[in-house]
């Protein structure tokens, strides 16, 4: 049971934080100062959800909240809203990690895609209720769609390269209980 030792879990938590900071870093590179008409996928969200379904103990609530709050601040979003949505959605996926463990990938994909879509729609509606200035709908839609479409790739990379895999049935019960 080497893959449940605290140091192993801690290592993956650190890896999650590091990968998120790398993604932020790539976003902030001043390569593209012309306005674009399409949005790039939210890789952090896809990764967070993929890990929450596979190994909920790798992405504790507080870590997710901290990382996404940092992203909100650095990427000039209204701080907190997007982070709150991601926390709620990842909690939902975490609660269903046990039932999602045995289903084939398309079902998992559908569940996660639904969670993502709800996040994006609620975000857009929430911002318009509060009269926050927003960019074109096309950027928003392409971002939502590309985030959903990139999810299988993120899952594949997490599974084969990073080794974030679903655990056996007996472990999941104990893992979801951990904070």
């Amino acid at each position, binding site marked *: 049971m080497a893959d449940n030792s605290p140091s192993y879990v801690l290592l993956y938590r650190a890896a999650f934080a590091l990968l998120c900071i790398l993604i932020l870093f790539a976003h902030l590179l001043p390569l593209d100062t012309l306005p674009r008409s399409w949005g790039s996928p939210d890789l952090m969200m896809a990764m967070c959800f993929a890990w929450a379904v596979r190994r909920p103990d790798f992405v504790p609530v507080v870590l997710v909240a901290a990382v996404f709050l940092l992203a909100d601040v650095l990427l*000039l979003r209204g701080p907190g809203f997007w982070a*709150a949505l991601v926390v709620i959605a990842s909690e939902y996926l975490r609660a269903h990690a046990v039932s999602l463990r045995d289903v084939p990938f398309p079902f998992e994909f559908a569940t996660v895609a639904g969670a993502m879509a709800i996040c994006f729609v609620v975000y857009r509606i929430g911002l318009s209720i509060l009269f926050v200035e927003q960019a074109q709908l096309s950027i928003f839609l392409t*971002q939502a769609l590309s985030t959903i479409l990139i999810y299988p790739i993120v899952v594949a990379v997490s599974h084969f390269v990073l080794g974030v895999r679903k655990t056996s049935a007996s472990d999941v019960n104990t893992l979801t209980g951990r904070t």
Partner: protein
Amino acid sequence: MAQDKTNSEDYLRPIRRLLTGLVVFFLLGIFLIWRIDSPRVERFRADLVDRFVPSFSWAMAPVTTVANVIDDFQSYGRIYEQNQELRRELQQMKAWKEAALQLEQENAKLLDLNKVRLDPALTYVTGVVLADSGSPFRQSVLLNVGARDGIQDGWATMDGIGLVGRVSGVGQNTARVILLTDTNSRIPVTIEPSGQRAILSGDNTANPPIELLESPELIRPGDRVISSGDGGVFPADLLIGRVSLGSDKRLRVRLSADYERLKFLRVLRSQASTPITDPGSLLAPANGELAQTETETGDDG
């Protein structure tokens, strides 16, 4: 053992729920505070960016350079045509240079005749672009100059040629520049030669539209757009770009600044204009006697 596990789980579940609830409550609270008291939170954001981004600059510069080299590498494919093109352009530029030199001499003579002196307060600080906004929804760049260098909110920034944006958010070592293309950017402009005033409002596209224009029929594509200095924030007569007719039949501005490669930006020092604190005493008599007598005579008549 199994018994213990289920027990601890029963324990933990409500605690987890509570923790999640608290975290979500906290995050939404921050968001609402941002919506209500945005300047304070934006100052906090500027401070955090100030702490976080410069610590990456050692890595950012080489990565950006490599990416740009790869970008440039694609243009090596047609190096011969490019060379020819540059030679042709150089020829034209020589003619322009001659004209410019003559004009400069003439201008110097005229200035001397009129005893005009340019305002020495109009100087600039040059900054290097550290980072962009990082999201397709916002258009801004982060400069490596900040409060330490005397930068203040609201100052204009230019590249070599045209206006690029406005400083909004100053940290100790960094300053954020909201580009003219951002959805939050509104700049008062004058359109030459008709001299009409309008507002240039960014809409997250490369060519921002002109709004609040009184008589659009006087405007022709190709007219120069310069800053008007209305509102007292920006210096007047900074070149912004030229008018063009967008595909949606709206008048838009083709910006003069090279937005494709923003690398070094000049932040113009603007002097604060004298604040007018009590407009009433400037326009009307201090006591309302005069007005009163006027109304009385009006009644009599």
